[in-house]
């Protein structure tokens, strides 16, 4: 048998061919749309394209103008406030609800449906409804005033300093249900024995959650964080439907700045520069995550 020839390695391109064929849509999307589109956008952010993209380069002018624009600064500040608060509150409320739901309660299905149904509605709808509920003439404020507390004031949508909280209320209403679901799935994945061990050790429920369960749910928190964060960066529809960025420019957000300048102001260059800044923000958020998620797994 020594005479047998060593079989050559077949062409590597053809191995796994079906898989490669099946992945063509993904590869095209990744390369053409996500990579190509992004590169295209970054590239044109250095031009002074107006209504149509054109190749007249102006260096960093668009960026200088961007960072000098009060509306952009306000947008960034709003995004920061909205982002941090909505992260914190989504996680806290979502987790608390999930923890409550995990207590073997009655009507679990009903409660879960109630918490989750807003997620089925679009931001447009959410924005409209909360605009309505928060309207000082008809909504919560007028109702409470009509109950006798006539000095009661709660009109976030018409008060520039707190308008972002009005948007936050609506966003939380829409999104916490999903967070709760994710958390609930995570909680259900925790080993029953851990709970038992904690009970035998005499650790009170809240301490068990705080010191044992939450640290164990790290992966769930990370997944959730990524989902919430990606939504935060993109927030647009909600603001448009609820306040259109008002009063004044008090509730502007970066995505709206991009859209308005690209299409309303017909200044693509400015819009592209703003998108590029958003991309950089996104990169700052997710590159560490992607590194942990994809880089880390290979080593594990």
């Amino acid at each position: 048998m020594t005479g047998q020839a060593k079989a050559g390695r077949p062409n590597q391109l053809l191995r796994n061919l079906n898989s490669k064929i099946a992945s063509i849509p993904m590869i095209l999307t990744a390369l053409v749309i996500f990579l190509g589109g992004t590169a295209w956008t970054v590239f044109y952010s250095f031009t002074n394209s107006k209504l149509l993209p054109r190749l007249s380069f102006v260096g960093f002018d668009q960026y200088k103008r961007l960072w000098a624009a009060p509306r952009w600064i306000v947008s960034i500040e709003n995004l920061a406030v909205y982002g941090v608060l909505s992260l914190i509150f989504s996680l806290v409320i979502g987790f608390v609800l999930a923890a409550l739901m995990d207590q073997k309660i009655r009507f679990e299905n009903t409660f879960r449906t109630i918490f989750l149904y807003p997620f089925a509605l679009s931001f447009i709808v959410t924005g409209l409804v909360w605009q309505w509920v928060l309207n000082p003439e008809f909504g919560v404020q007028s109702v409470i005033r009509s109950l006798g507390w006539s000095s009661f004031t709660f009109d976030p949508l018409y008060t520039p300093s707190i308008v972002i909280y009005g948007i936050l209320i609506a966003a939380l209403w829409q999104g916490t249900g999903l967070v709760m679901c994710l958390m609930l799935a995570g909680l259900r994945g925790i080993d029953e024995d851990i709970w038992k061990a904690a009970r035998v050790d005499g650790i009170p429920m809240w301490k068990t959650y705080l010191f044992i369960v939450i640290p164990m749910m790290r992966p769930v928190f990370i997944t959730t964080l990524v989902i919430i964060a990606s939504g935060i960066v993109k927030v647009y529809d909600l603001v448009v439907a609820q306040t259109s960025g008002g009063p004044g420019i008090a509730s502007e957000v970066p995505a709206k700045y991009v859209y308005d300048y690209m299409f309303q102001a017909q200044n693509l260059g400015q819009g592209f520069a703003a998108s590029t800044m958003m991309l950089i923000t996104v990169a700052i958020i997710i590159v560490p995550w992607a590194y942990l998620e994809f880089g880390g797994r290979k080593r594990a």
Partner: protein
Amino acid sequence: MNSSVSIRDLSLNFGAVSVLKDLNLEINDGEFLVLLGSSGCGKSTLLNCIAGLLDASDGQIFIKGKNVTWEEPKDRGIGMVFQSYALYPQMTVEKNLSFGLQVAKVSQQEIDKRVARASEILQIQPLLKRKPAELSGGQRQRVAIGRALVRDVDVFLFDEPLSNLDAKLRSELRVEIKRLHQSLKNTMIYVTHDQIEALTLADRIAIMKNGIIQQLADPTTIYNKPRNLFVAGFIGSPSMNFLRGEIAKQGDQMFFTANGVNFSLAGYDTPEALQVGRKVILGVRPEHVKVNENLGAEVHDATVDIEEPMGADNLLWLKHAGHTMSVRINGARRFSPGSAVKLGFDMSLASLFDAETELRI
């Protein structure tokens, strides 16, 4: 002797399913009791009831003479070790040990003392700063025991603490647990479905089936005088050989007869129970069948079907009078499949069961 844990008429239902049925059990002070049974028979459920992690549907539980039926787990003076260890993954070993004490507001000095003592007993001092993920299976096991140890409890509960480990480690840790019991002298209740663990560790074994204790006795009794067919078949690997037949008499000699083959019953330990014509089941353990050597008075013919050499022992599967019989012999003695052999049976070591009640007679 003092009763350490006492269970009276305990019942437990999950909805309509009754898992434990009117269960009674007295466990002595310092005793090592093993609950043995196949999967789903209710062992963990019973243990969880004792720990207070499940509410009984009926009945009472006493620990150290105190009725603890309604007490919280932490107030029962028990410590528990779980199959998956249930270590708190993000805490160091030291924190795992001390967390329960800190919550109970024990002074730091006392905590340090107890952790030091437990980690000395379990020899985990070098691991105190590590996290559970950085420990081997055996080390985790020890930490889990340590968590019960620091709490200075009267009763240790173990729920299959070794079944996640590989065979080698399992046999090592078995010895360690045994040693620990010898030095601590606490009451220990240990759930397992591994009979080797039960036989080697237990002072007494309670064999469970469908939520009912089938036999409660020391390992030797369980092994040699199983109370019923279930216990006999459950204990021993490979399992006891069972032959269905009836009792016959020839002259003044009692026989067990099956498939036309007679086995002399001379030497059976309770001869008074042998009535001619009674339908019985004969049980003989594989190591109590002699092959070719020391055959005794009565000799049977058989052929080797399969041979399973296992190192120290050699397991033969024989064809004998229409049934298959397993025989364990010394590992050095080898037989090739198909060869003819002679068998001898020692009835003083065999068991007879009533075919109907399945109880040992």
